[in-house]
């Protein structure tokens, strides 16, 4: 999202001359910025710098490694990065998340756009109620929704499987190795559609009604209006939601972690962030975990900005 600042005409020379009180005036903005800068440095920049520092370190044990002084922290160069990138479990988790993204993002955004268009269409009834009920799942924390869905996925306790069983259908368990990715994706879609719908719906509401009047005069129907007017105008919102969804996909953690104890098919390195968690808190290796985190952060950064650059001209062309 670039906003190009117009070139300011050069200030008249008089303004450049220092006047008494100028230094105070220059200090004022810094004073206002200070809280934000302090918080940013303390709680974001420093931890990131520390994580990067840790990612180049490791802990070496000597002998049996029992008692005090058995562990020393040493410099490890890029070895943690090399180990992460060469780890077949990490590569498998990246592949899994890519597939997960291919399933989740189009489904979620497609549904969000569809619901937004339906709510915006003039013939819709009970829009307020529908809007809230579609949005509501977003308000449910991921851990809670995963527990709820986990219950529904387990054949022994699920009402769905009870009905399938009564109908004589043999429906495979959603926790089987082929289907588990859809089980996880479903939770993300269920939770994410509402938020994305609201973003798209808001920009639909901002479309001036003259456009619709003009289109009606030209004999355009509702579907035509959606296709030719609404969707092209909300493209920037769709792109924004796409970037958010992509970032959320790369960071998927809560859903599979919550479902893990219910199934045999979700391993402790099912997604990249789960590997980070396992390395840091189960294996006690903060250093590898830091290296993998940096890799994930860089990948997220490159993917989001790369994508934005790619679509910039089309999406935000009108802003220029």
């Amino acid at each position: 999202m670039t906003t190009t600042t117009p070139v300011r005409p050069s200030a008249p020379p008089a303004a450049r001359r220092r006047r008494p009180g100028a230094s105070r005036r220059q200090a004022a903005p810094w004073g206002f910025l200070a809280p934000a800068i302090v918080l940013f440095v303390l709680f974001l920049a420093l931890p990131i710098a520390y994580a990067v520092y840790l990612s180049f370190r490791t802990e070496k044990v000597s002998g049996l490694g029992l008692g005090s002084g058995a562990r020393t922290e040493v410099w490890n160069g890029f070895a943690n990065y090399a180990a992460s990138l060469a780890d077949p479990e990490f590569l498998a988790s990246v592949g899994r998340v890519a597939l997960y993204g291919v399933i989740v993002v189009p489904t979620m955004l497609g549904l969000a756009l569809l619901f937004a268009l339906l709510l915006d269409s003039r013939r819709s009834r009970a829009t307020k109620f529908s809007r809230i009920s579609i949005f509501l799942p977003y308000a449910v924390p991921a851990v809670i929704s995963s527990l709820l869905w986990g219950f529904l996925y387990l054949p022994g306790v699920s009402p769905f499987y009870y009905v399938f069983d009564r109908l004589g259908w043999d429906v495979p368990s959603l926790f089987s190795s082929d289907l588990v990715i859809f089980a996880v994706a479903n939770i993300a879609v269920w939770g994410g559609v509402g938020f994305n719908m609201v973003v798209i719906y808001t920009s639909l509401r901002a479309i001036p009604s003259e456009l619709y009047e003009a289109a009606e005069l030209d004999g355009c129907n509702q579907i035509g209006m959606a296709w030719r007017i609404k969707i092209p105008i909300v493209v920037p919102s769709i792109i924004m939601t796409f970037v958010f969804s992509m970032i959320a996909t790369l960071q998927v953690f809560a859903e599979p972690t919550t479902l893990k104890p219910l199934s045999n098919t979700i391993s402790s390195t099912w997604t990249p962030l789960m590997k980070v968690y396992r390395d840091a808190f189960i294996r006690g290796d903060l250093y590898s975990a830091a290296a993998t985190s940096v890799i994930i952060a860089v990948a997220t950064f490159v993917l989001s900005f790369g994508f934005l650059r790619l679509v910039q001209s089309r999406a935000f062309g009108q802003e220029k």
Partner: protein
Amino acid sequence: MRLSTGTKAAAIIASAALLMTACSSGGGSDAPAADGPVELTFWTWAPNVDKVVETWNAANPDIHVTVNKQDGGDPAITKLLTAVKAGSGAPDIMQTEYQKIPTLVSADALADISGEVADLADQFPEGVWNDVTLGSDAVYAVPQDSGPMQFYYRADIFEQLGLTVPTTWDEYAATAAALQAADPTKYLGTFSATDAGWFTGLSQQAGASWWGIDGDSWTVAVDDEATLKVADYWGGLVESGVIDNKPMYTPEWNAALNNGTQIGWLSAIWAPGVLEGNAPDTAGLWKMAPMPQWDAAKPATGNWGGSATAVTSQSKHPAEAAQFIEWLNASQEGVDLLVEQTGIYPANIPASAEALSEPPTFFANQPDFYEIAAQTAKTAGSFTYGPNVNVTYSAYNDEFGKATEAKSQAAFTAAVEAMQKVTLEDLKSSGFNVKE
């Protein structure tokens, strides 16, 4: 409400300051006041321990213990290790599961209290004492409870279907098959890929001890003959489908225990509490028997769970903390209170006879419950844990997850071999001396 930027900034700074003070004031023991009582903090997750501690505090005005309730074994250990790394914030006294002790000692999180407590070695089963000393002269914790394994079964369904209680693993397999033949919806048990401690107990029963200390080096024997035998046996049962392959501790498993689909559970002495919570409709229908045996002439069992109480390396009052621990886990009063309030199975031998006179309420139908328990507890073999148990256990989850899903006997033994490889490689890459 509209706030000026200045007010907002002030609010943010104030809340940040609050946050920082909140972080820095947690945990840790304060320096002793000139003549006030010694203040000790105690991290534990056992229910109602605060009530046990109340008795201590009333009787010992000089040593005041404050209980800080934890979520459970794993999160508490993670917090402790973080505090040790940070250099402050650890409690004085810490409850820890036996398998975590080498990890904690390796991280220099526990104090050696051999000089602070009396010689307690003969008051505890040998295997459990070995867990808190790591086979050395040091004492890193005092055992609190132990988890000898037994076989829990639905006596009513066994009777109804004419099944006999298996005493050997061959009989267990035959009973599982007979049950499936009589009623295909019912299972005698499940192989849980999410409970590494359970599989460790089964392997311990067969004679395994996955780690060992040889001179100045660790040895790793996850893929020893005993463990491979256990994996092969369960792989066969799962492959033939007579045993379920779903994890334990899921809503589905709870429902199955409650509605009589799972009619047996190879579990430990704390099982009555779990069954009472997860299968409340089945009160009075369960019974407990010793584990099925590999060799009926040499009865054995394993341990699943159990914990000890330790003094952390950050405590400024190790002597007072050790005094409290000794009272809690090795005195008649402490053990009585623990049994009464928290429902644990005490590891302390002299005190347990008096403390365990009544069977648990959920097993009121089995008056000799604790007699059988005491007999089986004596047969638990010794098992040495290593400094990277978590690595091995997480490898168990991943490898056996695949194997149980595939329902393949060959995959079960391959999973054990993969666990061995992961464990060994982790020790070596961390720099431990390892003898192969």
